[in-house]
């Protein structure tokens, strides 16, 4: 949540500022519904919901004045409460730092180097207006995992202020003593605590097309999908287009699941098992996963459903065999 919000509305629809929402919270609104009733926030586009929740959450975290045990001290020595707030903030910061040291951010992406498809990792460290802290160089540890889950090696990079890192997969492979064709997961560990602009983007390209997507988060970050399953929503197996699901298992244990291919009319091909080694990758055309996909789908676009939830990082690429172009995106 943005910290200095005094000059920026929290709720744009109702033009509500932080002070007005805090005032409503202080006067007894303890839920989003109550705040909505009193102020009108989160009643139109819901865009302010996260900010409103943060304000409510902060209010919950704030101990009651009686429980601080400082009221008498504050009365005796003016300014102690201010110091106490600073101290609490410092303790919170140290705790965060320790937590991060134990479990640094690890983001991952998938790269490939083959005859008709190349890739590169792109990251930047841009300064952000309004953030007063100095932007130290980003120290990155980049591990490359082969499709069978073996860690093939690590490279280190430093990303200076406002710089953009471009790591071509062919250069990475050469640095690690590996040869193309190859593909696999890049796991990027941050030696800085804040992510800022330093997310991992990947470009897959050749002379015809360039397509891009970004990293998926995993390991230290909770799974985003708490209620559903993964699905590749655009599966094509025509003369011209061929879909390649890309599934990376981001944890050590082998991931086993069954997948089924469905047509828009509801017809489903018998499900098939797939197994991905820990930290390994599946990158195959749909016609190899389902040999009957071409005749089953015809000109229609199908959906590939996973039947188990897992710590997966997923993308898809669609190969235009007419032009040799590739279109890619991440899945949710």
């Amino acid at each position: 949540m943005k910290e200095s919000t005094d000059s920026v509305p929290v709720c744009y629809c109702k033009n509500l500022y932080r002070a007005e929402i805090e005032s409503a919270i202080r006067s007894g609104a303890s839920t989003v519904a109550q705040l909505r009733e009193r102020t009108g926030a989160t009643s139109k586009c819901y865009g302010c919901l996260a900010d409103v929740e943060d304000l409510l959450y902060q209010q919950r975290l704030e101990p009651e004045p009686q429980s601080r045990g400082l009221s008498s001290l504050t009365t005796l020595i003016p300014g102690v409460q201010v110091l106490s707030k600073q101290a609490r903030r410092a303790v919170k910061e140290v705790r965060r730092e320790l937590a991060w040291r134990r479990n640094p951010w690890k983001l991952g992406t998938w790269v490939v180097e083959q005859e008709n498809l190349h890739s590169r990792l792109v990251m930047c460290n841009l300064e952000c207006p309004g953030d007063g802290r100095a932007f130290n160089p980003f120290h990155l540890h980049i591990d490359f995992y082969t499709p069978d889950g073996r860690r093939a090696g690590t490279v280190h990079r430093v990303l200076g202020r406002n710089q953009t890192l471009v790591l071509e997969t062919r250069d990475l492979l050469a640095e690690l003593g590996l040869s193309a064709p190859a593909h696999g997961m890049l796991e990027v560990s941050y030696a800085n605590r804040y992510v800022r602009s330093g997310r991992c983007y990947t470009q897959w390209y050749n002379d015809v097309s360039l397509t891009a997507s970004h990293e998926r988060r995993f390991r230290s970050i909770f799974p985003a999908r708490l209620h559903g399953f993964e699905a590749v929503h655009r599966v094509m197996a025509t003369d011209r287009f061929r879909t390649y699901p890309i599934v990376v298992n981001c944890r050590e244990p082998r991931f086993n699941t069954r997948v089924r291919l469905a047509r828009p009319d509801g017809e489903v091909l018998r499900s098939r098992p797939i197994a991905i080694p820990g930290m390994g990758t599946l990158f195959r055309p749909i016609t190899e996963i389902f040999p009957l996909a071409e005749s089953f789908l015809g000109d229609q676009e199908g959906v590939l459903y996973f039947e188990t939830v897992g710590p997966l990082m997923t993308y898809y690429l669609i190969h235009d065999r007419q032009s040799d172009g590739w279109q890619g995106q991440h899945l949710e």
Partner: protein
Amino acid sequence: MSITEKVLAERPTANELDQWIPLYSWAQERPDFHCRLNIYPRIVSRNETDRFRCRLRYFSRSAEPIGEFFTEEVTGDGVLRLPLRKAADAMGLATLDGVMEVHTFQVGAQPATPRFLKCWMDFESEDGRWFASLPCAPFRGARKSMISPESQVQPGIVADDTYRTHLLAINPMPRSASFFVTLYNAAGAPLSGFRHTLGPCDYLVRPLEEIYPDLRQHFAPGGIGSIRLDGDYKLLGWYIIENRATGRVYCMDHFAPFFRDIRSDSGL
């Protein structure tokens, strides 16, 4: 305590929202250019009897929607593929050239977390030059820890002999907003000065080399740099990468905010 329990404990008010938040996308529908909306609720539903519906509101440079369209229902294990031609016809419009608000909701029930149902808009042209897919984006409301939501960033802007990049910025709010664009080459040198004001529910799409004619030289020799977009408030930014020789577009994606950390349920 499990991770899920921790997350839910950290977000005690998450379920108080009666429906998901809306998403926004660029909308273009012409005889030679088509958009298609893709929604598959299975990413948030394990129940085949869950029912979902979507309300589309089309804006074209005005604070009030030009048209509204409700899709048919789709079940938890279904896929909704809606050509925007169908929505345009229902709205009585020959073409679409504006911003589409996509608001999916669960019929007869509160939706589960996360805050929105992600969906994609496909863009394809009759001549085969466009074959791209764009994730629709929320204005605000996805739970993220950001340094500044007003500023957004995209590493990997390309301006070389083979490719060029277009900026696509959308203002989904019913008031005007200004933004300015800064481009950084790989070494970190900035190129700035472009400022633009977007009207209510308006969009801008323009090649970056038209905004900054020296961009290609600035990005040389690698041809790759990064972009930062700073708005009066959060605007929605995307980029489009085009092959110079063939005009083919296979790449569209969204900008990202400056994260403090990543605890987002947005996938952005």
